[in-house]
């Protein structure tokens, strides 16, 4: 089986120039891989660097050393050294990221926030909105809210909009940062279902989940991040 993500010896340290140049080691020696159709859950206590690893895989944080191999349109690209244009390309057609919080764009209607990733990849607006509607419906966002911008929604509603936006595309890699954190039981179950569907479609996923029950339901493998913790 070919790995969709193949990370070898990746490391990251923050240098805080405004605090007298303090070095803040985040992770080192990060090594693991993720195959298609599998969900790897990162475990470890708060501050162990789980979110940082997700951000490194998305190209949001830079890597100081090591390699982050991503299977992108049939070839392997090292994201740690890729050009900005290439990273954007990879994000558009290969890696999706469901962050913990929705970075809302003012004035854009919820239905369009969710449909945007499909429109960007060339789908007709009406078709993209139809798919966005289906997902919002499944995630129990009432139709009367669809035309409103999500900025005024509750935390749980915003997170569900964010999940819908993350799950709408057919990208082969999906990164999930606590997708169920502020959801009730019914909506957590929907997310579990969505993850299972993605697996059946061959999607490779890396997730951070604190809820033991959810972790048990979605994880095929667990990677303990503690061993990558850079000794401070």
């Amino acid at each position, binding site marked *: 089986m070919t790995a969709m993500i193949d990370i070898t010896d990746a490391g990251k340290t*923050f*240098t*805080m*120039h*405004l605090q007298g140049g303090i070095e803040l080691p985040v992770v080192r020696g990060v090594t693991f891989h993720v195959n298609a159709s599998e969900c790897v859950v990162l475990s470890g206590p708060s501050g162990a660097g789980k979110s940082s690893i997700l*951000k490194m895989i998305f*190209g*949001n*944080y*830079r890597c100081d050393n090591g390699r982050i191999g991503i299977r992108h349109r049939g070839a392997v690209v090292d994201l740690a050294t890729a050009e*900005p*244009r290439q*990273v*954007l*390309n990879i994000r*558009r*057609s290969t890696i999706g990221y469901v962050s913990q919080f929705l970075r809302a*764009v*003012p*004035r*854009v209607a919820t239905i369009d926030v969710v449909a945007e990733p499909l*429109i*960007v*990849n*060339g789908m007709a607006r009406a078709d993209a909105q139809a798919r966005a509607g289906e997902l919002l419906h499944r995630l129990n966002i009432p139709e009367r809210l669809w035309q409103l911008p999500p900025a005024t929604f509750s935390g749980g509603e915003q997170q569900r909009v964010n999940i819908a936006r993350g799950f709408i595309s057919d990208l082969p890699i999906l990164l999930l940062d606590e997708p169920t954190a502020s959801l009730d039981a019914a909506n957590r179950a929907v997310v579990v279902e969505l993850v299972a569907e993605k697996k059946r479609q061959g999607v490779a996923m890396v997730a951070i989940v604190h809820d033991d029950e959810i972790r048990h339901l979605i994880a095929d493998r667990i990677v303990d991040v503690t061993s990558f913790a850079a000794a401070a």
Partner: protein
Amino acid sequence: MVDQATLDNDEPLLVAKSLSKSFGRIAACRDVSFSLYPGEVLAIVGESGSGKSTLLQMLSGQLTPSAGHVSYRMRDGVTRDLATLGEAERRFLFRTDWGFVHQDPAQGLRMAVSAGANVGERLMAVGWNHYGRIRDTASDWLTRVEIDTARIDDAPRTYSGGMRQRLQIARNLVTEPRLVFMDEPTGGLDVSVQARLLDLLRSLVAELNLAVIIVTHDLAVARLLSHRVMVMKGGRVIETGLTDQVLDDPREPYTQLLVSSILPP
């Protein structure tokens, strides 16, 4: 946003090579090089005096560099050095394929003639001569920038600051340019007016697949609009990369200072 065909199109639209500019003994801009691709939005950030406006003026052919070159891929696919263009060719570029949005709309508009004429003028400059069609297109563009078409015959001096800025944008985009330069387009506007303008810019840039070089000191503007960012200090580019990467994981001391100075929303 950017379609696949454009992404696979690996020829840059504009290339800056080792651009420098000195005013007497003062080096305003030193050794700046980058490539801009079709549909790409590049933000140049930095404080006043960092050289970002000087750079923008060189890139848009309004200021001759002391050293270095700017080349641009013309509509016929041929890449030309701006310095070798004749005055007529340069003016033609400015009227058709380029836009320039000034911070002060009064610099980019004719304040005493009607809004419709402000937009229509760019069309006439490229040879449109059917009055009805010019007026229809102007009125269509006013709608796109959310200006009530009932105001088409009013001069922009009767408009609010936010409306003037939106009119300036309409005037620039009516000829369907491929590259638009923007100099602090939201500077000097109220916060609520800024948000609306940014949102409008964001959707127009995506819809028209525009390449944009935007100078701003506001990192929130860079975050919302740009794909890539260049941080300038003392005339040099000190850090460059994907916008979210530079803003979430800044490396240089000065960039860290800029990012840490943003007030939380």
